[in-house]
């Protein structure tokens, strides 16, 4: 009967795919995509736990006795909104980063940052010596 858990396995797989994208990809947009997948997997987790076999959508109507659990739906409505808010903000950051660094690859940005740091340190030591 372990098959009865397949929904959770799907969730776990999606979750790990999302996390892997965040870890492995250097492109900032792809990271946000990964994050979105990660979050969506959580939505699926909640919604699938709300499902009742033979139930119907939680809108009261004549003749329906069994409903799926409405509470997770409410929670996930909120979570979706949070997700889009995060995505929007993240993308706004990506635009700004693109303007400031001229790239949206983590490698490049990291490289540029190291350069700036070296430069400031160099200036500091020069100032101290002179």
């Amino acid at each position, binding site marked *: 009967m372990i098959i009865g858990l397949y929904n959770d*396995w799907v969730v776990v797989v999606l979750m790990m795919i999302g*996390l892997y994208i965040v870890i492995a990809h250097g*492109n900032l947009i792809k990271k946000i995509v990964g994050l*979105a997948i990660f979050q969506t997997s959580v939505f*699926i987790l909640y919604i699938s736990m709300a499902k009742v076999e033979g139930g119907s959508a*939680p809108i009261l*109507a004549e003749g329906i006795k069994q409903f799926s659990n409405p509470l997770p739906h409410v929670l996930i409505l909120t979570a979706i909104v949070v997700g889009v808010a995060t995505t*929007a903000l993240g993308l706004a950051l990506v635009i700004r980063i693109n303007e400031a660094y001229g790239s949206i690859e983590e490698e490049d940005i990291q490289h540029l940052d190291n350069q700036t740091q070296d430069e400031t340190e160099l200036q500091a030591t020069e100032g101290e010596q002179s």
Partner: protein
Amino acid sequence: MKDLFAVVMLLGIYSLLSASFFVAMDAVDVAFTEAAVGAGISTLLMLVVITITGRSEKTTRHKPLLALLVVVFTGSMLIYGTFDMPYFGIADAPIHSHVAPRYIQESMKEVGIPNIVTSVLASYRAFDTFGEVVVIFTAGIGVMALLSVGRRPEENEKTTAIDDSMHEQYLVIRIVTKMLIPFILLYALYVQFHGDFGPGGGFQAGVIFAAAIILYTMLFGLTTARKVINQSFIQFIAAAGVLLYGCVGIVSMLNGANFFDYNALASDPVAGQHLGILLIEWGVGCTVASVMIMIFFNFAERREMQQNNEKINNIEGDSL
């Protein structure tokens, strides 16, 4: 996959798929939202960003094996961790037997709205929803803080001319859209008011409303859209939505009940609930719509600015 465009489209499709999955799972409200947000707004935003940043990923990357290992290991641990979970769809799982039954059985009597999701959302857990509106508001403010360019520089005549000519090319689409937009707006209003009875509500309505405006903007250009809806007006609406929502709570507090206790809004508790939910759904709708528009405008503005800069550079480059 190097092409970010394809990546984003796939994400959109993924969102749509999960939306349809949610329908199958009886979560119609959620599906509605996911379709509007995941497949709609966020895909759109990503596309705008791609037009700014370029659509292809840098190629020289390889997939770290270690990360893969870690992820696979963690994943298998998690799967192991699921073994004690209640099985999918079982009706007597703890989740269905503690808090939820009351919503299903009593909400009609206590709140008087057939859509249980709406009554939980707007009344039982009204504060969560308030928080959600604030999250959206925060995102809007955040995006504005990041992207707003302050006072717009005097439009370069040449570039506006180019813009206009570009927009004039898609005449058919423009006319069709012009006809469509009123219907979309009407639909948005329908969703707004129908939230009590079927899937829908302030949030979905707001998104649809925003979609109409965004559609308009895409086809008629930012400048034209700006003339129709100016920045400070949107900001005002966004703030007003949050305030409206909050004021419902404050009024109920002034009437001697707890915050968000709609029963106190009218002499009859159920009528009070109706009134309260109506008002806060409006608040949600206003904020969501205006914030979505705000975010899109800011994105589009950046894009325009960048394109203008490039054009100016090109022109200068040519003249040299």
